[in-house]
């Protein structure tokens, strides 16, 4: 169930006050080695799990868009191709989010992966391209809001990363809105 309390996990120290260009490797966020997983490790794990779930949702939609089935119309196939083209860059951004979050979680080699480190399975995506875009839109919105909810509990540099990721996810919403609008137009 929960991570072993004896596991030694530490957050990597990060110098991240972008404005103070020459803030250097300072003593503010120096690495600490807590005897048991600190609250921010749990926070990081939940953020990692959230990104994994989003990626799983994108992969579900892309898999279905890549196999629209033989009996579908030309307009439907075109929508699926447009959807794929729109989703790929956003999926790449989520993978970058995940990599960056993981880079801040330092776990010794002998530790077994916690449940949250295994990829979660996302619920099946709708087959219709417009509905699939709406499904991702809702997921992005929820993920962006949940990322902001983690801010009060995060150390400074992690808070900046979470806020930036949340903002990135918020920018995916208008892109998906445009996809939804386009698929609706093509269907007429």
């Amino acid at each position, binding site marked *: 169930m929960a991570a072993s309390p004896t596991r030694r996990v530490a957050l990597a120290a990060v*110098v*991240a006050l972008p404005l103070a260009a020459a803030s250097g490797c300072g003593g503010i966020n120096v690495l600490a080695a807590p005897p048991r997983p600190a609250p921010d490790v749990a926070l990081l794990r939940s953020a990692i799990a959230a990104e994994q779930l989003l990626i799983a949702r994108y992969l579900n939609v892309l898999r279905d868009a890549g196999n629209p089935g033989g009996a579908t119309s030309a307009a439907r196939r075109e929508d699926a191709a447009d959807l794929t083209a729109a989703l790929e*860059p*956003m999926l790449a951004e989520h993978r970058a989010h995940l990599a960056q979050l993981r880079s801040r979680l330092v776990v010794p080699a002998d530790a077994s992966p916690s449940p949250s480190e295994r990829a979660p399975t996302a619920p099946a995506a709708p087959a219709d391209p417009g509905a699939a875009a709406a499904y991702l839109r809702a997921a992005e919105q929820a993920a962006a809001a949940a990322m902001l909810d983690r801010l009060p509990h995060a150390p400074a540099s992690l808070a*900046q990363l979470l*806020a*930036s990721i949340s903002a990135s996810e918020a920018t995916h919403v*208008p892109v998906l809105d445009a996809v939804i609008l386009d698929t609706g137009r093509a269907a007429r």
Partner: protein
Amino acid sequence: MTSPASLATTAALQAALAAEHAAVYGYGVVGANLTGSRQAAAMTDWVAHQVARDTLEAMLRSRGAEPVAAAVAYRLPVTVRTPGQAASLAVFLEDRVATAYLGLVALSDISIRQFGALQVRAAALRAAAWRGSTVAFPGLTASALAAPRHRS
């Protein structure tokens, strides 16, 4: 009583205000090089930066600090003569503003942290509209992203 945390808060608010002053100036140049709906979009964003500037000034005054003044003029990072260059300048301004607000997100005051995060989001949305695409880490610099991994 000025604690280190209080000084850090004031400094971060002043940095965000300086970025907003630059954005207010810069959007004047952006709008002057656009027409039609693109100019209207620039005007909307210009007003958003004026509102944010006023909010930051009020926050600083309520803390007993004198808000930094705008410069008379700013050296722009690019020459702006075409609509494409105007959009590039808007992206640059928004990226700067997002970075400045991430400075607020690093503070311990939770309400200022949330305010900063919402402003990062607003800047990211405007930047994405001008850029025509999204980015993975709005406001974060490459050095901030590369920082982990140096455990000795």
